[in-house]
């Protein structure tokens, strides 16, 4: 199966402190079309791994290839363009722009990419409808529930048809019901072929929604295997 993401001997240290590396010689592959869960205790390097894959941070050593692109060869501007077109990021605390409506938040990546306004608008409306938040399109984030905000964030992440979706604790700030709704959406996206990398500390979530689980401890991969009971098979 095609490897959408490849990390080869990737390490990340801060302030030259090799004794406490955030990532330590990580070499993994992410299979296209699968849901991969990244798990580990607090400070194990989960979010750092996500940041490195998404081009939000650069490794101190090693190389990262996403959808055939070696991220180490890209400058800051190229990395930004890469993120807006190849990667969609969903954050634990949504990270919406509070002074923009839901629709305007969703449109931002398409507008930054210079997509024709009518095309971007049509795509945004489709996504809002698919995520069942069309009635929220003209509301501001402050007036939405957590679940609604996270769905807006998902729509924003998908507007440019990214090859890869990165979700950092997407249900961490949600109640159980809202969290389940968001996970259902992610599963649905995966059934449509979307590759997803999911950071979570929730064993149940990993076992029911992921095809593969990667475990990190102190920045190093300690386990990398198929999930016990994947909810769906990759297509």
């Amino acid at each position, binding site marked *: 199966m095609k490897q959408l993401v490849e990390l080869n001997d990737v390490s990340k240290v801060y302030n030259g402190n090799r004794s406490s590396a*955030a990532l330590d010689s990580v070499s993994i592959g992410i299979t296209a079309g699968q849901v991969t869960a990244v798990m580990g205790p607090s*400070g194990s390097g*989960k*979010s*750092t791994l*996500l*940041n490195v894959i*998404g081009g*939000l*941070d650069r490794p101190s050593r090693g190389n990262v290839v996403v959808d055939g692109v070696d991220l180490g060869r890209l400058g*800051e*501007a190229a990395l*930004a*363009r890469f*993120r*807006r*077109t190849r990667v969609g*990021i969903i*954050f*634990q605390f949504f*990270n*919406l*722009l*509070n*002074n*923009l*409506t839901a629709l*305007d938040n969703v*449109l*931002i*990546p398409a*507008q*930054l*990419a*210079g997509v024709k*306004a009518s095309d971007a608008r049509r795509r945004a409306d489709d996504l809002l409808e698919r995520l069942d938040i069309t009635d929220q399109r003209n509301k*501001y984030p*402050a007036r939405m529930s957590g679940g609604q905000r996270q769905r807006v964030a998902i729509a*924003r*992440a998908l507007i*440019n048809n990214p090859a890869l979706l990165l979700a*950092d604790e997407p249900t961490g700030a949600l109640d159980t019901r809202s969290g389940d709704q968001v996970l259902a959406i992610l599963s649905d996206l995966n059934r449509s072929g979307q590759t997803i990398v999911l950071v979570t500390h929730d064993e149940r979530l990993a076992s029911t929604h992921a095809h593969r689980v990667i475990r990190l401890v102190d920045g190093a991969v300690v386990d990398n295997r198929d999930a016990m009971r994947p909810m769906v098979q990759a297509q």
Partner: protein
Amino acid sequence: MTAVIHKSLADLARWKMQTTVILFVVFLSSLSATLALTLLVESDAPFDHAFQQAHGAHLTMTFAASAVTESELRARGANSAVSAFAGPFKLVPWTIQQPDGRAFTEALAGRAGPGGAVDRLTLSAGRWAQNNTEVVLSQQMADDIGLQIGESLTPAIDSPIRAMTVVGIASGVGNEPGAWALPGAVPLITTGKFQTSYLMDFRLVHAATQQEVASAANSISAGLAQNAVVDSTNYLDAKLGADRTTAVMIPFLLAFSAFALLASAFIIANLVSGAVIAGTRDIGIMKSVGFTPAQVVGVLAGQMLIPAMVGCFLGLPVGILASQPFLSDTAHAFGLPRTFGVAPGPDAVGVLAILLVVIATTVFASLRAGRMGAASAIATGSSPATGHGYRMARIAARINLPRALTLGGGESFSRPARSAMTVGAILIGVATVTFSLGLSRSLSDVKAGLTRDGVVQLQVFRESSGPGNKGAQSAVPSGPAGPPAAPAVPTDQQTTALIAAQPGTARVVAERLVDVSVAAAGEPVPMTAYRGDSSWLGYPIINGRWFSAADEAVAPTAFLTRTGHHVGDTITATLDGQDLHLRLVGEIFDIQGDNILLRTAWGTLPGNPEAQSYEIQLKPGTDADRVAGTIESSTTGLGVDVHGRGGVDTAFILINSVLAGLALILTLIALAGVFNTVVLNTREKARDIAILKAIGMTPRQVITMVMASVALVGVAGAAIGIPAGIALHRNILVLMGQIASGTNIPNQYFNVFDIELLIGLAAGGIVIALLGAMLPAQWAAGSRVTEVLQTE
């Protein structure tokens, strides 16, 4: 108290950018306030300060050496009206030959050194003469002739003075000779063409008024031979001229001082309140660990006041030092000795005012913060700023422009109070530049209108004298050296023919100057009559028109004000007992003497008068000096003035350099204001910027967005600042005209803002905003997404 000091110092070290901006803005503000106030105080009475330092002479008298001896004159120093004296100094007319064939005569005085009990001279360059072949020039003579140290002066063939080398340039206060040499270099000649005079300087017991000075002069000269006193001048006339001309600077120096304080107040208030908002979380933590509200205020006050005091401490001496070149130029412009000027009282007041602004805004902002509960302060400081700029963001989102531009534009006024203060700072910067450029252009026009150098290049004088005639002005100064023996003078017709015969002559008008009496004028009124078409002479018209027929006249504003007349009135001017009825057809811009004068057509004068002087316009490309030399060498009895020389340029250069200097400082303050605003905004928006970068905004787009957020602010600042600057320009110009010579201003001097300049000024407002935002924009573009979002 220890905890408060520790926290303040730690915060100063942690928030280096904020500390630096406060220090820089307060430094600039105190520098500009000190500069403007020092110039203001010193410009108010430059002559008085110089006179005090130089022990200036209240009265200068010149005596004929043929009628009085040195010992007789020294005895005059014991007169009861005299408190101190210097001299007698020998004085001879010194005719110098220039390479172009022209000759000019100055007074050369013999003096052992620059010091003394009265009228101490200040050497501005070089040294005093050490032998009889060396000469020290006055600043005026050096400027007029363009001579420098080391140059040689060749005497005219019949001059009793040998060739001399310039070794120094000196200034005194009052009516100085053109040059000084050692006493041994100045001969004592009591007969013939170049007769020696004696110059004496007196400090008087009572010298506050012209009457007191005149009384002292009479007392000093009592008992001397009838023709002993050749000339007498006093300090009051020199004081009037110098003080009046520098007083025109007072209005715009006041304006600049006010601007500097206002701009500083805007920016410091913005800076302080922003810093307090940014530190809200810190305030909550401080309170939660036990800081009292008063201690919280103390910490914030320390953060602001320490760099503010350093800024003031640096700005005050730098402002004093920065004012010295301008004060030197002021002294130079009026031939006064250069002195070190400082106005400690006003300077301290200005700096104190700035510190008070810092204290007031800090206390106000920190009191609000100090009253906040600890938990709410932590929550408020930790959570992203919300509730700002929704409407503008929504409108901007609909505009079909690149998204980075509309995102930035939508943020322009999301914090109305902060944006308003930033607009205020830019407004002041733009208004200052508008006003400075406008005033500079207007003063250039004023200079052209006063000197009329572009219209009249030469003025020729017939050196006639005789009872009943108004004596022609002589090109040879009749100062302390006394007038030389009268040469043969060509007739009016001969002079007219000589001028017409010059190939370079384009236009000429003949003139005669008479004194007339006009009711309510309070003094004899000089009236100049012009023969021929004089409409080209270039006197700017304020109201009405130039005269076009006999019995019509024009006058400056001061004459109209003094006599209570207006354009259109008919006045009666009495000349030698004969009444002349003149219709006032125009008010002109004309600054000569006290501006009580008239100008009229030749036909107004009774009888068959002769012209005394001639104003000449040369053809383009004609060498004025060559024509002057040809006229002077063709005959005796004619003097020629070449226009375009003199001290007027220096005064205007001085004003322009003061305008430029202060405008630059205020523009820097405006830049600092924008910089501070953008730093605060990008700090508050750090999360949003990180989100945008995470979802694909490139560094260039981040910079575009940040710059766009201030562009509208710059437009707003320019939109208000330009009309404000134009209004200020008009008002200041009117005020300067009134102070300088009680004159109104011709409309053309106001209309100096052409479309190109206005466009440039508008762009200037935007440029100020963009320049101030450039660095913070780049910092925002380079910020690390993961650090801000804290995804780990």
